[in-house]
């Protein structure tokens, strides 16, 4: 297909120029060419501007979105908001519970997803031989990555909530989320492991080290920055996800602050969700939602900045 296209193009030009030579006298031939070329150039520039406008459109929308939300939060986002519990009275309501809930949730998600994700990556990159098992695992990871988050919610509902009896606790939510973000960690860890150059492994084997010693003492330490970056990406995703938790049955109004992983809880995205739904009844909820969104976005911003710093400062190039 590639050769055909190029040849077609060349052929078209050749035929055009031949036609022009035969049919037109020399003088108008030059004029004809000039007109045609300038027409093509005008078209090109027009298209260029349309394309750039489209690109800018996306940014403009982003700008509007941020502006709307930030302006909605002014006056409502303050220290009192961050440290108060929920309340039916909007002025008194705060997201302390949601923040603590998010932290508790991450306390489950981070170790579970890191352990499973890094282990999977180590298996795929260091131990697996080309074969059916390796392919099956890889296909599964990429399929899991594309499953809608509600379905993870259904899975969590059936397995963690009902079958294992964890209900709508932090444990159930955390395990569900871990599976949701697992592919992110696996892919990042795989890349990090792959980036470790062969000559380091060779040096270790040359001294009589076995495979696990080499992985533990040489390969893993070098790939930690990449793995951390993957972990941060996974956390960023997990912090903002709402659907699976709603499906699990996280209740609307949680007054009690969770103290253990079997407790009920709420997180920031759920708070945003419920406040948004009830905006019709209580318009002030829109401001509360805006304020929570700002907190959420700032958290994500900090997380991603940390990831970038890790990448720039600690990533070794060989």
């Amino acid at each position: 297909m590639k050769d055909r296209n190029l040849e077609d193009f060349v052929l078209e030009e050749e035929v055009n120029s031949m036609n022009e030579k035969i049919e037109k006298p020399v003088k108008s031939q030059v004029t004809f060419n000039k007109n045609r070329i300038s027409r093509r150039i005008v078209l090109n520039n027009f298209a260029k501007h349309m394309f750039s406008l489209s690109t800018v459109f996306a940014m403009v929308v982003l700008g509007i979105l941020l502006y709307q939300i930030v302006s909605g939060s002014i006056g409502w986002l303050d220290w009192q908001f961050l440290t108060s519990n929920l309340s039916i009275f909007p002025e008194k309501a705060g997201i302390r519970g949601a923040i603590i809930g998010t932290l508790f949730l991450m306390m489950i998600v981070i170790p579970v997803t890191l352990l499973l994700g890094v282990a999977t990556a180590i298996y795929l990159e260091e131990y697996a031989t080309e074969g059916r098992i390796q392919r099956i695992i890889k296909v599964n990871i990429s399929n899991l990555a594309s499953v809608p988050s509600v379905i993870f919610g259904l899975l969590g509902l059936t397995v963690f909530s009902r079958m294992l009896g964890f209900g709508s606790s932090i444990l159930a939510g955390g395990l569900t989320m871990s599976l949701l973000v697992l592919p992110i960690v696996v892919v990042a860890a795989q890349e990090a492991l792959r980036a470790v150059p062969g000559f380091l492994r060779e040096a270790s084997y040359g001294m009589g080290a076995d495979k696990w010693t080499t992985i533990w003492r040489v390969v893993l330490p070098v790939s930690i920055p990449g793995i951390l970056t993957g972990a941060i990406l996974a956390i960023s995703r997990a912090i903002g996800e709402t659907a699976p938790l709603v499906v699990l049955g996280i209740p609307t109004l949680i007054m009690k602050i969770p103290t253990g992983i079997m407790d009920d809880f709420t997180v920031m995205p759920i708070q945003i969700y419920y406040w948004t739904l009830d905006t019709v009844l209580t318009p002030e909820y829109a401001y509360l939602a805006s304020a929570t969104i700002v907190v959420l976005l700032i958290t994500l911003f900090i997380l991603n900045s940390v990831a970038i710093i890790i990448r720039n400062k600690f990533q070794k190039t060989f």
Partner: protein
Amino acid sequence: MDNKNIRDIIQQNIKKKNHFSDRIMPKIFLFMALISVVTTFGIVYTLIFDSIKFFSQVPIREVFSTNLSPLSREPSFGFLPLLNGTFLTTIIAMLVAVPVGMAAAIYLSQFASPRLRKVLKPVLEVLAGIPTIVYGFFAYSFVTPLLMRLIPSLGAKNALSPGIVMGIMIIPMVASLSEDAMNAVPTIMKEGAMGLGSTRLETTTKVIIPASISGIVASIVLAVSRAIGETMIVTIASGSSKNFTFDITQSMQTMTAYIVEFTSGDAGSGTVGYYSLYAVGLILFVFTLGMNLVAQYISRKYREEY
């Protein structure tokens, strides 16, 4: 401490080591790696198992009807309104995402200077990183009121607003995947065209896009899959009305919103209503999985071997 001594210590230690770590470690890691496979099986199993319970109680003819009233005194479980809601919002989203996404991809990969690209690309990445609940809020509290001023007959919950916002959310995905596809076209092809005096536009439309069309189509299919699976934006802004209608100014419910609605109220387990969730989930899963397989197939089969 001379050489012979160290030599002996090391030789002793290495004879003692039975390298049990090299035998057991691969198995441990394999076990953990198989969890992802178990998860997929878990998803398929729970969806199918509970769907069977649903379909054994609800005749197929009812499922294909347009009457969806799970909570009424005479419950009916016609899924067509949900399919309708999902597809309408998806189509609207694609009408926004594909043109803008492609335009951005073309601009960034073919027209923009490297410096500009360095600034613009991260902004697109930011768009992609915003949680969907934020988009949902934006759709409901800003876009809908704005649209209501332009279209007086627009309902507070409608399909147009979430459709547009979903499209905006998907723009970075289309843009970035298409851009990757276009960048994979070798520079020599591009230079060949430009060396013959073509404008950038002509190079793009006549050489680059045809060469990368499989990657572009794959990216669009993936974007559709994403839109079908999107939940929060449509739950908030499109509502839960179970009409079967093509009027996008009215409220309608998508498959994903149905699942959310029913689990946030406490559908007693064991009821048909509860099982209907899994049936809808199964349909959703089949659609998204199918689209992803199609996308993989397209990009594999028609990929130019460079």
